[in-house]
């Protein structure tokens, strides 16, 4: 079943005071996300990621097109009860405690009082804020606010979770915790749609990714496929601080670091490169085919010329 679907969804803002000029924030976007998928929405700052999320949340009205979540109109209360949302760099009510904040969101989500108190305690423990439950949010660090933000987004057990830059501004530990939480949501069969420009996170977590730039969808792909294609090159690593002269004749890219050296050569030159190492009596440590990375795919899409938006599956 399709969890999220956008059909020619677009947004143009009118900017200026007197003579308003149109500013395209999102060109017609056609996108589908299957239930249970972790979907990464990638793009540089100002690409249109947050606008897309706001359109999906019904916070801004589209200039054209429609969006559906779990097969229903995004403005239906029934749909909103099934979604959780974490905005980018969230700040919450300064004078509420973490427990009071979750209580408030649980009330708004229509949770019953008995269910509320049980789930809030469990959720605070799950995001590691059990000890800070009675602390006012103005005393929270950025990482703690992000965690309480995640807690409010998943407290009511939504089927679809939207996260806008969930790792932004977090330290390595915080990023790891958020990653674990997204993994956990995936294990539970939830659909997770998150925007990010941290490609390593997307590569580690997502089933599929979409790249958006200048308000236009540039490409959609399965992460496993994007990163498994062989680039026609091999990487050799050996012990030694010097690069034998023969490598330059092979057109290799060579690097040295401490007691190790590395060379990337075309796969047809593999045997010749190994022969050089044998001749020089250098000890080979590894020989691996170079695979495409998500970064390459991302850069290729972002740097490509603007094309008319197509339907992405």
């Amino acid at each position, binding site marked *: 079943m399709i969890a999220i679907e956008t059909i020619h969804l677009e947004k143009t*803002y009118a900017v200026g005071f007197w003579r308003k000029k149109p500013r395209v924030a999102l060109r017609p976007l056609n996108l589908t996300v299957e239930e249970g998928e972790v979907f990464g929405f990638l793009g540089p700052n100002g690409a249109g990621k947050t606008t897309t999320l*706001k359109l999906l*949340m*019904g*916070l*801004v*009205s589209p200039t054209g097109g429609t969006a559906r979540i779990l097969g229903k109109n995004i403005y239906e*209360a*029934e749909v*909103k*009860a099934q*979604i*959780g*949302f*974490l*905005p*980018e*760099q*969230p*700040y*919450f*009510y*300064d*004078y*509420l405690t973490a427990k*009071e904040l979750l209580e*408030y*969101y649980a*009330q*708004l*989500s*229509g949770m019953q009082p008995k269910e509320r108190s049980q789930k809030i305690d469990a959720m605070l423990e799950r995001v590691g804020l059990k000890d800070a439950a009675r602390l006012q949010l103005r005393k929270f660090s950025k990482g703690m606010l992000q965690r309480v*933000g995640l807690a*409010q*987004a998943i407290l009511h057990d939504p089927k679809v979770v*939207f996260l806008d830059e969930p790792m932004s501004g977090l330290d390595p530990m915080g990023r790891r915790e958020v990653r674990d939480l997204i993994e956990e949501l995936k294990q539970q069969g939830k659909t997770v749609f998150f925007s990010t420009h941290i490609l390593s996170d997307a590569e580690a977590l997502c089933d599929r990714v979409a790249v958006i730039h200048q308000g236009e969808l540039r490409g959609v792909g399965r992460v496993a496929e994007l990163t498994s294609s062989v680039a026609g090159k091999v990487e050799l690593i050996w012990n030694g601080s010097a690069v034998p002269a023969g490598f330059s004749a092979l057109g290799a890219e060579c690097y040295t670091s401490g007691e190790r050296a590395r060379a990337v050569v075309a796969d047809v030159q593999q045997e010749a490169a190994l022969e050089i190492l044998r001749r020089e009596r250098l000890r080979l440590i590894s020989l691996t085919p170079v695979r495409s990375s998500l970064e390459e795919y991302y850069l290729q899409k972002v740097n490509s010329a603007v094309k008319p938006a197509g339907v992405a599956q």
Partner: protein
Amino acid sequence: MSRVVYIAANTFREAVRDRVLYNLIAFAVLLSGAAILVGQISIDIERLVVVNLGLTAVSLFGVVIAIFIGIGLVSKEMEKRTLYTVLSRPVRRWEFIVGKFFGLAGTLLVNTFFMAVGVFAALLYVSHKFQSSDAWILVALFFIVLQLLILCSLALLFSSFSSPLLSAVFAFSLFVIGSFAEDLRLFARMTRGLTHGLAATAAYLVPNFSALNVIGQVAHEQPISWHLIACNTAYALAYSTMAICGAVLIFERRNLK
């Protein structure tokens, strides 16, 4: 409907815990103290001075609180993006606006209550006992609450489409103009043609705060007619409702950038 109550309760809790509010109450208490001092040096008119100064302080501080908090009700939530998480839940936009209004109205009611306690304490201090005409002070306080409800709805209306600074300017300007609404109506009656049309429209469009100000009458122990109480109550409720409806209509169409 329950979501309106939750939003109102949260707004009330946030406002009450905000220390700025306590500072304003402290100022009001100080002013009531000043009323006692002035009352002591005003021979034979201590009661009049205390009632006048005390109620004026309640009104002015109430106005400051209503505008100060009212203008930030929507913009603060947008700035902090808390509105995004609230509206991504099954909460309708009108529920948010109405909840915010009742939350602020509750805050103002509680504040007025505590400031009124200060006024009655000052009155007891200078008069040593209460008299039956002091009951009219409660009517003056009720009218102040009605004024604050109108102001609160106007602040919410302005904050639904403009910046906090502009909202404060608009709301405060309307409070000043509205305090002279009766004079504006008198002026409209004296003019002819286009000027009359403009003045009359402005006079009936701005909130009539002067009709809600009976501090002078109460200080001079003059009774307030039940007719005025009924008319003022109906007027304030109708005006606030219209302003809230306006705020809802604007907010329903607003893009939360």
